[in-house]
């Protein structure tokens, strides 16, 4: 009995964590290149609505995911052109992008409200995916495995590869990178596009996997959680994974607690728990490392102009 509950808790927490993990991982790469894109929530919503619309029209969730990634990239490119080519302020542009994304997804999604599609299903055959406890490992959909593979890939990319080194260099000291001869603007465009694609996929996870039904503002502020996670995870993919799953876990426990009807805790306090727990744990981890060490990319959020 207990193990059944445990399995279902794990399944729920993974599902809750995956969209945040995807969006945050994209934003981590963007921030490592020295760009602060606060428009994650907007890009997620654009991805969510595009993914839903295409999946609804074609009946294919695969095409829906592709459309979501492309929509995320398209939205991100608006941000990139404004901030990189026209050197607009990144904070203001990012906030505007979120507001734009909320509006655009509402407009496009107006005709889809309440409609349903087929949910993104598990990858592995029913024998594994439906197994009472093996489904903890094999019962997830493709985006869960993709997000986990991407954590490893991004981590290796940043730490072990030359393009990753160059990307970090651009975020660390854009003027020096330019002086040595690296195309700062081009690298940042690529990073922003990657961030847009992952935010789009993260958004589509809501509309294609979590609640295969369109509703306005489907992502419910998870883009902001993703942004915060990047900072609290000190720009490390491994900790990002930990943070996202921790957030998912506490959120699942909160639902369980509500379902169990714990009366002595106000529901508002329970609702706060995922946020508090994530912040407290990740902050304590940052504190334990050597004091005074700065983790943030040194050029984060600064406009670059060649001198």
């Amino acid at each position, binding site marked *: 009995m207990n193990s059944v509950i445990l399995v279902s808790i794990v399944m729920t927490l993974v599902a809750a964590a995956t969209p945040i993990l995807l969006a945050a991982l994209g934003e981590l790469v963007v921030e490592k290149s020295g760009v602060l894109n606060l428009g994650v929530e907007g890009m997620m919503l654009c991805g969510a609505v595009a993914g839903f619309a295409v999946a609804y029209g074609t009946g294919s969730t695969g095409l829906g995911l592709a459309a979501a990634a492309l929509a995320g990239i398209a939205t991100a490119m608006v941000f990139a052109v404004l901030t990189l080519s026209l050197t607009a302020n990144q904070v203001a542009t990012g906030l505007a992008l979120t507001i734009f994304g909320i509006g655009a997804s509402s407009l496009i999604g107006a005709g889809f409200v309440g409609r349903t599609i087929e949910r993104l299903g598990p990858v592995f055959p029913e024998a594994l995916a439906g197994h009472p406890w093996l489904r903890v490992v094999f019962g997830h959909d493709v985006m869960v495995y993709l997000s986990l593979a991407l954590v490893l890939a991004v981590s290796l990319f940043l730490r072990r590869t*030359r393009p990753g*080194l*160059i990307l*970090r*260099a651009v975020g*660390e*000291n854009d*003027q*020096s*990178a330019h*002086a*040595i*001869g*690296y195309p700062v603007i081009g690298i940042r465009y690529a990073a922003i596009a990657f961030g847009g694609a992952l935010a789009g996929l993260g958004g589509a996870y809501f509309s294609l996997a979590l609640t295969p039904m369109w509703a306005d503002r489907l992502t419910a502020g998870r883009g902001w959680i993703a942004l915060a996670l990047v900072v609290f995870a000190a720009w490390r993919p491994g900790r990002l994974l930990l943070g996202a799953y921790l957030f998912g876990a506490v959120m699942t426990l909160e639902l369980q607690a509500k379902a169990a009807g714990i009366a002595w805790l106000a529901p508002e306090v329970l609702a706060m728990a995922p946020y508090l727990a994530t912040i407290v744990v990740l902050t304590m981890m940052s504190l334990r490392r*050597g*004091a*005074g060490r*700065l983790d943030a*990319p*040194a050029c984060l959020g600064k406009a670059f102009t060649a001198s």
Partner: protein
Amino acid sequence: MSPPRLALSRISKSFPGVKANEDVSLSVRAGEIHALLGENGAGKSTLVKIIYGVQQADEGSIAWDGEPVAIASPKAARRLGIGMVFQHFSLFDAMTVIENIALGLDEAVDREGLKRQVAAILESYSLPLDPEREVHTLSVGERQRVEIVRCLLQKPRLLIMDEPTSVLMPQEVERLFQTLRQIASQGCSILYISHKLHEIKTLCEAATILRGGRVVASCDPRLESTTHMAELMIGAELRRVERRPAQSAGAVRLEVDGLSLPGDPPFGTDLAAISFEARAGEILGIAGVAGNGQSELLTALSGERPVTRDGAILLDGRPIGGLGAGARRSLGLACVPEERNGHAAVPDFTLAENSVLTARHRVPLAPLGFISAGDVARFTDAVIKRFDVRTTGPSAPARALSGGNLQKFIMGREIGQEPGVLVVSQPSWGVDAGAAASIRQELVDLAAKGSAVVVISQDLDELLELADRLCVLNEGRLSPPRPVASLGIDEIGLMMGGVHGEAPPAGAGNHA
């Protein structure tokens, strides 16, 4: 006769409001060590940026081995075989030495192979450097070594060195010169930018002197006097530092008594029972190679790092160990750290705002906490005029000034407060001959008025010119001061280098 390795003809480059280079021609032969001389703002940096492809000339042409070339980017320059060691290091603070070196290469090299190559270069040039350390933990001198190694890895055919010796100690300079001569003897040309004229005399075979963006002279520095070259450079007669006649030492103004302090984590040097005193009217020099506790000593004296024992530092007999930087300034102890942008000045603040930050304690710039714009402008303007700071005015942001000009401003801001004790680190690093002379003169004059001046420097010539007494800071320990008059330069060099011990082998950090 073969064509020159590099020939510039009639290069001009303008920026809004400034003609940085006008009609500049020069040529560097294969294997020649060619000096590019000029004051701050003479157009050396712009010219070098054009050669290295960072900027494009408005007019004129470049020929490489006799062939006309367009150098569109630093990458194109490196493909031709041009390497450059920047004055303002193009390093990435949060990355390790080896990562920084890898970033300077145009194609990927496997990590182990690169480590072996770097270790070989470090060893053959006897440069102590741990490839696994993060750059922000390195001293200025060590950072420069990263730049030099990064360049040498590319086996360049023309090496541009922008003021490479300004932070090296004499033995290291000599070793660098041997290296440069060795590189040149193998056919690589070297374009050597410096304002240390005696170095140019010993090292270079040809010199081009720039002033106001134009070539004012080309000469063989081995045959010219340093005074003549300096005068060509500044277009006027050189001011010598005028020492006041030897006077009896005054009262003790600053006393440091058994100051011990753990080093800045994670690689700082512990200060071990430092004791010295600086008297009114004297200049005390503290020599030593960067990374031996200089920054720790400066932050302890300035009040940036608290000292647990109040009596470890006494200002005019008053214990001030527990006081912060502002309180110490009010009492008359001013400090100028080595790093100008970010430590001595806020780069994005205007000069006027930077004045307020330190001078308000001794000059009424912000009575009752409100900044008095008029007084600030007057004070800043006075500093700019008195120290000949080349800038558009008090409202220019600090980062817009060249290193030398910003240093003149910072020195002026502190000296203008007439502190009882002034502690300054590397007062003339990266500053040209004319400006360095005027900064030194101001230090001498300040001492003559009854202040005590403590100069922490790696530049022995500077210390010998300025200091009355000299001691050496080495691995956090301070040698007893000795009167400069009784010391020879070799003796001090031995004090610095000999005591310092052998450098760790270059490959020592080469594990994993």
